[in-house]
Structures are given as C-alpha cells and as structure tokens.
C-alpha cells in the first residue's frame, strides 16, 4: 500500500511520523535558528566595529553573546545534524523509517517551544540570560536575572528532545539495518551518528543535572554552587564541562561523517581507511569524557591535574590526525572534481585542521594561562564549529538536496557562496587570533584602541559571511521551487551507497521491502 503525505498542510507537518518530513522540519528549524543566532552575531560585530559604545548597552551585549552561543549550539548545529540523520540514516541502512516514529515527532515538536521560551526572555523585564553560553555559577545563579528560570526550563526541553532523537537513532541503527548491512559495512555518517547518539544519551542528562542544581540553588535554598552555604562554584565548572566537552564532539562527529561521505564521491575512490575511521571516531568519543578540565586550567588546579588534562587532551590529536590523514589520502590520486559540496568539504578539512592546531596550543596548560578567555579561544572554537560543523552541514545540504527534491541547485551560485563564505570566514576569525594573542578578552562590549583595526576587519568579514548565508537560503529555495529537474538515481557520478539506489527525488516511503546487499 503506497501512502502519500497527508493532504492537509497542518496534519502533514504537525502529526508527521515520516522520517523525511521530520528531517525536513529539523533542517528548516535549524536554518531559522541559524539566521536568528547569526542576527545576534551581527549585533555583536556591529557593536565591536569600533571601540566605544555605539549601538547597544553593555547589558544587552552580554545577552547577545549568550544567546548567540546557545541558539547556535543547541538550536542551529545540533538540530541540523539530527535532521540530516533523520533523512539519511534510514535511506543509508535500508530501513523503511526511523524505529520510533511518534517519538520522532515529539522530539522535534518540543524544540520550537524550548526556543520560544528561551528567546522570549529577551523581551522580558530584566532581559535574557547574560552569563555566557557556559552559564558559570554564581553568575547564572546568585547574580542572574530572574528570567534564568525560563532559560533552565528551555535547556531541559532541548535536552529531552536530544535524548529522544538519539534513542531513536540508536534503535534504528541497531534493529533496522537491511539484511547483510553489518556494522562494519555501515556508511561512516551512520557510524559517527550512532556514536554521537550514545554520547548524547550519556551527557545531556548531566547538563539537565547542572541546570537542575542551579534551579534548586536559585529557588529552593540549596547550596550546590553557593560558597555561602558550603557549596563550591568550581563544582559547577566541573559538571558543566563534563557535559560540555563531549558536547563539542557531539557537534563535530556527525560533521566528520558527512565529509567522509562526500570526499570519496568526488574523489571517485572508496574512503581510505574505513575501519580506522570507525575506531578513531570511537576513540575520540571515549577521550571526550576524560579531558573536561582543560577548559578550566586557570581555576586553580594542582599541577598534577593540569599535567594530566594537558596530556590527555593532546592525545585526542592522534585519532583526529588519523581522520585528517584518511581524508587527504582518499583525495590522493583520485579523479577529483570540485562541485560545491566538495569545495565545502575540502575547506572543512583545511580549516578544521587549523582549528585543531590552535586547540593544541590551548591544550598546553602553561600557555593557556595567557590565552584563556581571550579572542584566541573565540577564534579557535569558531574554526572548529563554523568551518567544521557549519561548512559540513552546508556541504551535506548541497550534496543531498538534489536527492531530496529531485532538482539540481545552481552550481555557479553554490560556488560563489562557497568562495564568499570561505574568504569571509577567514577575514572574520583569522584576525581574532591576533586580537586574542594581543590580550583582548572575550565577552566584552568595548575594547582598548590598540585592538581597533583588527576588530573592524573582523566585523566586515562577519557581515560578508552573514550575506553568504542569505545566498545559501536563496539557492536552496530556488532549487526546491525552480531548480532543473533531474531523475538520475545516483545524482553524482562517483556516489556509492544505498541512498543512491533509490529513485530521485526520493519517494515519500522508501525501502518498504529491505534491499538486498551484495
């Protein structure tokens, strides 16, 4: 029995249990959040265009830095990759749908409410959260605006959504692989996601615990993080980063997976070192649990602790290096072509590696005292988060969009977007390394005159980068509405995998009977 999507717009999207529709919802939601978080970033860069206070109050600036981080991490990047997982994992492993389709609907539809709650605080008396996306106590408890309770509730809902999404992915991958699809035959995107899903189930509850302890400190008189009652604010930092460090790998591992799908396609060679990629991903996931305190070298740790966290952190460079080596080796002597997804993927490899190197610099405990909480850190994590996760997400959309909607995007526009994004990204964040090394602290609404020039350069780059995203939006809408129709199942000459055996555009229901694997 072939069922199409529901005729009514509302019942199709509100009550959907179809993995493709829910994937689409996730992707559009995350893009909306990406534009919102981007708008916050534009406010930040506009204020920092020149020294002195021009546009906004310092208090509002703090809210902007906080909301930019929260919206981008929890609203843009994470749901984008959950959306890709929803769309692609069933098609890649030969499953008809996700394992738990109703929970899939629930995990998406609570997200808009979480962000409505979070963003609404900006319009309330006292303003939104202003304590940085890391919400260190006591800034986020004793000294927080009253709206912090909305923030806490919002984080709880986001966490619930992530956990449900992850369980769905785990159940799908464990139970619903087509006959013959053994674990070591799964596409790397599926592998990286299933490992990410385990990370999410392990650490999102820790985040929920951290905000619950905050909630109790604020409203119920406990003293988890309050020194006046015998608690310890440093405990907050430990709990937060016990969640926070795995979180950064939650963001980047699916991005690794995407790039590991795209590079072989446009190199027309199988991925080099498939099994080492799987083991490297698992090692990174394991190591992410034992390095958290490298975010807090300046908190006053004993020397033994600093040394341990320093060496453990450096150890992560080994599996990450294996991955970078494998990507480069996949391209080596390949029949390369440079379509937009490939351009973004190559830029990902280069810029992510660059961000990894600055991470190595930051991991040196003795040197970190100088870099800590400066723009060097800001530059570092934007190289891995933006040039890492966002570039990879963009590559994924260009790579799979023709499969999804049966229409080809405009290659020229895609390439123009890539070059603007690539150049603008570096104009924005490269100078922030210099600012940080020169001592400019992060999260301030004003700066000394000696930092003026590079800040102006950085702001110009940021506006250009923002413009490139509008071009992206335009290109995607144009493709869906008016792109050149295609019906080649493979779309890309070098593409391998089950999703490319399906008709283009991908029908509403796929693999109702499992495919036969060679």
């Amino acid at each position, binding site marked *: 029995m072939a069922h199409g999507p529901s005729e009514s717009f509302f019942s199709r999207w509100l009550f959907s249990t179809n993995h493709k529709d829910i994937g689409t919802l996730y992707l559009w939601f995350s893009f909306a959040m990406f534009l919102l978080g981007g708008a916050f970033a534009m406010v930040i860069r506009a204020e920092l265009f020149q020294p002195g206070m021009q546009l906004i109050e310092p208090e509002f600036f703090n809210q902007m830095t906080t909301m930019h981080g929260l919206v981008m991490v929890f609203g843009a990047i994470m749901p984008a990759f959950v959306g890709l997982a929803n769309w692609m994992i069933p098609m890649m492993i030969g499953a008809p749908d996700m*394992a738990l389709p109703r929970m899939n609907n629930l995990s998406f539809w609570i997200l808009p409410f979480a962000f409505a709650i979070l963003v609404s605080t900006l319009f309330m008396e006292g303003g939104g959260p202003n304590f940085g996306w890391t919400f260190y106590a006591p800034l986020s408890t004793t000294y927080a605006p009253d709206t912090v309770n909305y923030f806490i509730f919002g984080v709880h809902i986001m966490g619930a959504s992530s956990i449900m999404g992850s*369980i769905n992915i785990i*159940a799908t991958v464990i139970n619903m692989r087509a006959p013959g699809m053994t674990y070591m035959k799964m596409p790397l995107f599926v592998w990286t996601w299933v490992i990410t899903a385990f990370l999410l189930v392990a650490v999102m*509850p820790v985040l929920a615990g951290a905000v619950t302890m905050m909630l109790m400190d604020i409203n119920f008189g406990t003293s988890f993080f309050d020194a006046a009652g015998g608690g*310890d604010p440093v405990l907050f930092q430990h709990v937060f980063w016990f969640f926070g460090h795995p979180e950064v790998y939650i963001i980047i591992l699916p991005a690794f997976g995407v790039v590991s799908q795209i590079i072989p396609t446009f190199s027309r060679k199988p991925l080099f070192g498939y099994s080492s990629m799987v083991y490297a991903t698992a090692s990174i996931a394991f190591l992410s649990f034992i390095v958290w305190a490298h975010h807090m070298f300046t908190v006053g740790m004993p020397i033994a602790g600093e040394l341990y966290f320093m060496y453990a952190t450096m150890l992560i460079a080994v599996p990450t290096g294996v991955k970078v080596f494998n990507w480069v080796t996949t391209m080596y002597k390949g029949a390369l072509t440079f379509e937009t997804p490939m351009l973004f993927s190559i830029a990902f490899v280069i810029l992510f590696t660059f961000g990894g190197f600055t991470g190595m610099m930051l991991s040196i405990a003795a040197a970190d005292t100088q870099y800590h909480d400066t723009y060097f850190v800001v530059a570092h994590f934007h190289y891995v988060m933006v040039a890492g996760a966002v570039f990879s997400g963009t590559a994924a959309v260009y790579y799979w969009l023709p499969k999804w909607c049966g229409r080809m995007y405009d290659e020229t526009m895609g390439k123009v977007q890539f070059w603007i994004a690539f150049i603008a990204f570096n104009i924005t964040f490269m100078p922030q390394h210099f600012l940080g090394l020169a001592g400019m602290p992060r999260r301030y609404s004003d700066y000394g005159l000696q930092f003026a020039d590079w800040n102006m350069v950085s702001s110009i780059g940021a506006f250009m980068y923002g413009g490139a995203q509008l071009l992206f939006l335009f290109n995607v809408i144009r493709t869906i509405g008016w792109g050149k129709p295609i019906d080649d199942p493979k779309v890309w000459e070098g593409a391998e995998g089950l999703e490319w055996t399906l008709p283009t555009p991908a029908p509403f229901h796929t693999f109702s009977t499992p495919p036969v694997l060679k």
Partner: protein
Amino acid sequence: MKNTTSHRNVLIKSLLGAAVMFMFAMFVLPPLYDLFCEITGIGGKTGDAYTATEVVVDTTREVEVQFVATNNATMPWEFYPVEHKVVVHPGEQKEIVFYAKNLTGMDMVGQAIPNVLPNNAADYFLKTECFCFNNQPLAAGDDAELAVVFIIDPDLPASVNTVTLSYTIFDITDRGSMQVSQLK
C-alpha cells in the same frame, strides 16, 4: 513484532541510562567532588568541630598562623581579625578573635566560610570552636567579637611553617532559616 519488542528494549535501556546519568550528575558528582577535595586538601576546606584530646605540645617547633578576612561581593559589614598573626606550637590550643560590625541600618545575617592555605595544611588545622560553625545574626549597627579556638596538629608536614586562615563573610540574610549546618 520482533522489531517492536527490540525497539522497546533499546528505548527502556537508553532511558534508564539517561536517568542514571542524571542521578550521577545530581547526587554523585557533588559528594564525589567534596570527597576529592577533602582527600587532596584542594580548596582549603577545614573540617567540622574538633573535640580536643590530650596531645603533647611540640615546643621545639613554631608555626606562624596568619589571619585574613574578606568581605564577599556586596557584604557591607566591617570584618577583620583583631590580631593578624600569632605564633603557636603544634598541639597548643589557641583562641583568637575576629571583629564584625553591621554598618547598615538593617538586621542582617552573615556566614563566614573558612579556607586554609597551603592546601596540605588544611587537614591539620583543627578548630574546637569557631563562629563559622554557625551563622552570625547582627542587628542594625551591632558589633560582635567572634572567637576561633584552634589547635595545629603536631603531624603538620615539616615543610609548612606558615599557615593562613582566611574567612570570607557572606550576606545570607535572604536565605532565611537555611544554615550551613543543615546543609552538611
């Protein structure tokens, strides 16, 4: 149908795992952190009230004990040690006094939190009496002399010749009836 049961299996196991991690963050990590700090002495937390026992006073050794008083953020009291340092023999019981005055026109409650440096001395700084064991209510304009009776354990590592006892006083007026002793 086999699929439905195995989906439920994954769901239940994962949700249990998530619940365990939540409990771990809420109820295991904080005590674990305290225990870690207590064992290593990091954070300079001192122990609870110590009941004095007969110990031999080691008159061959002198330890300088310094006193520091700090007001937390918005705490408006006057708060300082009457003597800034004393020299004691390990094992000798010594009483010193801090002075606190509520300079405001409101009744307030303060709470002093102790900290000992160096870290490896924290376990050897024994307090038989301390105003920090209770909170300190002071009516508007009132003042008080707050006593600490302490003994330096003769087992204090030989490398330590100076111990600093620091108190940070917090304004806990708004915390109502909550007291440190109830939280521990």
